């Protein structure tokens, strides 16, 4: 039976955040004074008038069934006056008005949901991730699964606060890098130019495909009397942008795609300004279901940072202080010609001083 179509643009806009705020948040909006971290995973925000709200941060797998989300709601109803929030890194923050509820709340989160409490202060964040094989049309690897595997391995760094400073992680399942900048990021690399399906290409908007290539490697050509595209192999650096534009430019390769790890990215302007992340190690096998080689490499970086980082130094700041020579020494990753940039602005990344660590 067809549904009668009532739809027209409603343009409702953003939901009213005010009706969603915890009463203490609404009451003290703009009047918070300071905060403390009573224990890992718990924040206490104190308002000018002495009101305090407790936040219990739980790691979530991001992908959840409605049944699980309802359980989350049950807990928030019981201890949080019916309010909660999510963080940009897919944690759930239970907002709690009464200090005495904090411990029972934590116990229930652990028991009923099986979610860990942590991720505040000098801990590892939940890994920011993308859609992967579960729902994107472009991925070279999985996101939800690789993140679950990694977080199993890094669990203690999430629940304990004993890193020099906070560490944010992300994964991206193709070179488009929806995962974004992070202290440690895991990204897919392709290693061949796209394989072109000349039957399928004409369906795509060819000028758009040509235009999207960052190195102008794509040009129109004629195949069997029909318009198609070709790729200049020497120019192509396997970014996969054309695959996003036209599925018939197949860049992924089940046998040869590998993973790379990047370090030292940061968004905040605290201390030094924001930083891009830099290549640490490449060529790690794309190895589901647990990607053990990736976990091992991430672990090496975290251990080295834990041993050598100073308080308030993010990974990039730690490396800035000790130098890249030392970074490669303490992690044991080889420095190779691929660590030297050869894309646009590459020379700005070279050492233009005699500052060398010998």
């Amino acid at each position: 039976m067809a549904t009668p179509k009532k739809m027209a643009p409603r343009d409702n806009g953003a939901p009213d955040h005010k009706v969603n705020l915890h009463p203490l948040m609404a009451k003290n909006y703009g009047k918070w004074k300071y905060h403390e971290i009573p224990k890992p995973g718990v924040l206490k925000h104190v308002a000018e008038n002495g009101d305090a709200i407790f936040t219990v941060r739980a790691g979530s797998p991001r992908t959840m069934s409605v049944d699980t989300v309802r359980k989350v709601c049950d807990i928030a109803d019981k201890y949080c006056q019916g309010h909660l929030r999510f963080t940009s890194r897919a944690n759930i923050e239970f907002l709690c008005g009464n200090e005495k509820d904090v411990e029972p709340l934590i116990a229930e989160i652990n028991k009923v949901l099986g979610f860990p409490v942590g991720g505040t202060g000098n801990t590892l964040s939940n890994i920011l991730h993308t859609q992967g094989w579960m729902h994107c049309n472009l991925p070279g690897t999985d996101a939800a699964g690789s993140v679950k595997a990694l977080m199993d391995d890094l669990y203690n760094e999430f629940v304990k606060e004993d890193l020099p400073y906070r560490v944010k992680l992300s994964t991206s399942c193709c070179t488009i890098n929806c995962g974004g900048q992070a202290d440690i990021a895991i990204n897919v690399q392709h290693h061949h130019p796209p394989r072109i399906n000349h039957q399928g290409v004409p369906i795509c908007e060819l000028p758009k495909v040509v235009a999207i290539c960052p190195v102008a490697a794509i040009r129109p050509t004629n195949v069997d009397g029909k318009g198609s595209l070709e790729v200049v192999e020497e120019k192509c650096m396997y970014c996969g942008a054309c695959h996003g534009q036209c599925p018939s430019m197949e860049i992924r390769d089940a046998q040869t795609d590998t993973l790379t790890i990047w370090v030292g990215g940061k968004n905040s302007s605290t201390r030094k300004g924001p930083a891009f992340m830099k290549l640490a190690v490449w060529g790690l096998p794309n190895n589901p279901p647990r990607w053990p080689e990736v976990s091992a490499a991430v672990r090496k970086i975290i251990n080295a940072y834990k041993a050598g980082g100073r308080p308030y130094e993010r990974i990039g700041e730690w490396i800035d202080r000790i130098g890249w020579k030392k970074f490669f020494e303490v992690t044991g990753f080889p420095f190779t010609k691929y660590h030297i940039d050869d894309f646009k602005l590459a020379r700005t990344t070279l050492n233009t001083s005699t500052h060398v660590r010998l």
Partner: protein
Amino acid sequence: MSDKNKKTEIKTPLLDELKTGPWPSFVNDLKKLSERKPAVGELLGQLEQSYEDNWNYWQGTVLNVDGYGGGVIARYSELAGKFPNIAQFHTIRIIPPAGWVYSTKKLRELCDIWDKHGAGIMQMHGMTGDALLLGTDNKTTFDAAEELMEAGWDLGGSGAAMRTLSCCVGQARCEMACFDTMGVTKFLTDTFISQLHRPELPYKYKFKLSGCANDCAASMQRSDMPVIGTWRGPMQIDQEEVAKFIDKHGLDYTVNNVITRCPTQCMQLKGKSIEVDNGNCVHCMHCINVMNKALAPGKDRGATILIGGKRTLKIGDTMSSVLVPFMKLETPEDWRKLTALVERIWEFWGENGLEHERIGEFIERVGLGTLLENIGLEPNVEMVAHPRSNPYIKFEELAPGRMGGEPEEAPTVVNKETEGFEKA
């Protein structure tokens, strides 16, 4: 049509390895859901196939709800023969409440609608900031969208449009916040809702709003227009609390972790008090983070508006850069100044941007100076890290007189080179 209620036994030995371990497992959760939603079982079946083959089996196309040019991420399975219930398996993007704060009432409403019309999978939240609801077909997408909109929700952005905004928790629960991130987020969303729903820009345009330089909304490298809270004038210092901090943590700790980490060295320790050269403070937030009881942002607050950040696709990463060093964002009039600025940028970029050209790439092509002239902003020294170091400049004020009076000459350099070449 396939029987949506018929449950087939699907084996997933590889995924089952993700059922164990201390971190919560989406596999366990979705397996349970699959007991009453066959499509979810098939989703796991296809995912298992991906794990086996290191290969992805989704195709992406476009599906639009009437009157909307985006917001639905359409997916068609290439394994529909094997998994008929996920032949169409779309995601609906939903604009979340600013700061991702939910009452359980509203969150349950989302759950109920999604349970009724979709596969019941939620992702809180996607990388753009939308609440993602996974698992509808071509028909149920409309049913779900209809009911969501009846309840006051709205579809998020996709394509060459303004995207769903995201912001930090801001003044709702953070003492650092220098402006009402949630209020401005809602205001921008509602003001530009048409540009969010009906793509008409050269490419996507993302706003992310953070209440201070800590940038919890990760706006610098992830949004075309970061709005980041800051202040003018003196930082607030409670010297009594400073002394308490020093007593508690010691002098070494205070010097090593606060004073010497200031990027502009504008802080000095005087006995047990702190002195700040406020004119040289760059409002980086470090000292305030460490001593948040003793130090606080100044009282004259606003935001820095930046432009042009984005992640890799096409030209590589670009960092945002300062466009307006300080803008008050307190009253609706202040907010309208921001939307007016955005409108001027969109007009110039809309007319001159190439298809698929993000604003940062556009600035790289035409130059920031050109943008400023066309949007009516004066150059400001805070827009640069330092003045230019290359001398290839066309000083417009000085050029015309000379160009008019110059006698035309033969290009001698070319001649010499030609001679030299022929002799050799």
